[in-house]
């Protein structure tokens, strides 16, 4: 018996694809500009409606573009925060199902991520699911443009990484985006300082921290204003997801489709909460002692005057690696050292503190550790 024919490629409105750089068959590279984002939205919705195969890649020179997909659904890339972006295939139904069940036609969602990334897709498919309005700025890589677009169209929903949230606040987002009702923080770990910042800036808004991945979708979300998530939630994740901490602390998630996802993210229990320690690739090995950069950053961010911080390992001829920190803000170096020495084990204390003007965000609006200046 002959095999069924491959699904037909999605037919696009004539004007749309010209805005995107077509790479190979149905693989499109999407830049950060408004025209490209709008064209990508049109392309995605058309492909979803037709249950057609499609591949999108954000403008990332590290990504190796895959061949045109033959299976219905979307191929897109992980953000590559700790390494090279990897292609992921997801069916259209999953992308819609992973959005929040709560929404409405009067929601106005401000797009802060490239639509070729999972975080951006979640915003678009939330709009599709609930008939909400998508607000697209002149560039999803330009914080001032994002705020301007959100203010002009009275955004009600903001989905952001912690790093981008801090950047937007310094650009005046709290005053100009005063209609926000929902702030969703994901992509990076939301520390207590991040959650408190969101609460201070938008006291009337619901602040939700979400743990999601390109491969496994949205796993856990929590809106109680406390860092981490309840330990009980591990067994009761979104849409039937069940998480478990392996012996070494790695989060392993059983997904609704039967797959088991080793996340590469390490957590620890602290009372009734589960707190993030770091990604596998980010753990710093100081003479055999495993240091979580997130734990160190948490301490440094608690020092007065510290606005942003990135902790990375630096090759050491003596110990293999040592801990170093880049810090933004008007802070006292002695206070940072004292805070670290009193709250951390010795191998965790940074051997060098570098004052920097700003920390660059990756194209996925995250602090990149890969290739950070150590």
């Amino acid at each position, binding site marked *: 018996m002959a095999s069924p024919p491959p699904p037909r490629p999605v037919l696009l409105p004539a004007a749309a694809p010209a805005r995107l750089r077509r790479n190979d068959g149905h693989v499109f590279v999407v830049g950060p500009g408004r025209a490209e984002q709008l064209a990508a939205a049109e392309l995605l919705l058309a492909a979803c409606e037709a249950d057609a195969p499609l591949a999108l890649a954000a403008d990332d020179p590290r990504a190796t573009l895959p061949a045109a997909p033959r299976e219905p659904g979307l191929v897109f890339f992980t953000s590559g925060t700790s390494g090279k972006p990897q292609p992921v295939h997801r069916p259209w139904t999953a992308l819609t199902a992973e959005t929040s069940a709560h929404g409405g036609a009067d929601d106005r969602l401000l797009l802060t991520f490239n639509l070729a990334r999972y975080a951006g897709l979640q915003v678009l498919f939330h709009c599709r699911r609930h008939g909400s309005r998508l607000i697209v700025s002149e560039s999803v890589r330009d914080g001032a443009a994002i705020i301007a677009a959100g203010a002009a169209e009275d955004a009600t929903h903001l989905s952001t990484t912690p790093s981008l949230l801090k950047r937007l606040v310094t650009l005046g987002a709290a005053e100009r985006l005063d209609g926000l009702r929902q702030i969703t923080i994901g992509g990076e770990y939301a520390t207590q300082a991040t959650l408190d910042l969101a609460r201070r800036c938008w006291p009337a808004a619901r602040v939700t921290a979400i743990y999601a991945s390109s491969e496994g979708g949205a796993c856990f979300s929590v809106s109680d204003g406390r860092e981490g998530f309840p330990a009980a939630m591990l067994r009761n994740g979104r849409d039937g997801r069940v998480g478990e901490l392996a012996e070494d602390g790695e989060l392993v998630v059983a997904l609704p489709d039967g797959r088991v996802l080793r996340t590469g993210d390490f957590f620890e229990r602290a009372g009734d909460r589960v707190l993030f320690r770091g990604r596998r690739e980010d753990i710093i090995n100081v003479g055999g002692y495993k240091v979580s950069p997130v734990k160190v950053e948490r301490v440094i961010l608690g020092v007065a005057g510290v606005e942003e911080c990135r902790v990375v390992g630096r090759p050491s001829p*003596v110990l293999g690696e040592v801990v170093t920190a880049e810090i933004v803000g008007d802070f006292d170096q002695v206070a940072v050292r004292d805070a670290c020495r009193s709250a951390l084990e010795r191998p965790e204390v940074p051997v060098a503190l570098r004052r920097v003007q700003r920390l660059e965000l990756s194209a996925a609006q995250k602090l990149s550790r890969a290739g950070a200046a150590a």
Partner: protein
Amino acid sequence: MNALSAILAAVQELAPGDYGCDTALLDEVGLDSLDYATVVVQVEDELGVKLRENDIDWSSVRTIEQLAAIFEQHGVPAAA
């Protein structure tokens, strides 16, 4: 700043004392391996050099002067 001055400054910050070129970093100053790594990183930053780990026989580096000589091998003047 030369390597000797940078090393002495970094050591003084960790363990203030009266040290000479032939002072042994581990045995006499009392530095442990973390302190030692801290000194090396701070001197690297101060002098703008990165030591090449594979080129160094660390078992033969005991004193402040011997560490300064390592930096000298990497193009930094050991002393003024």
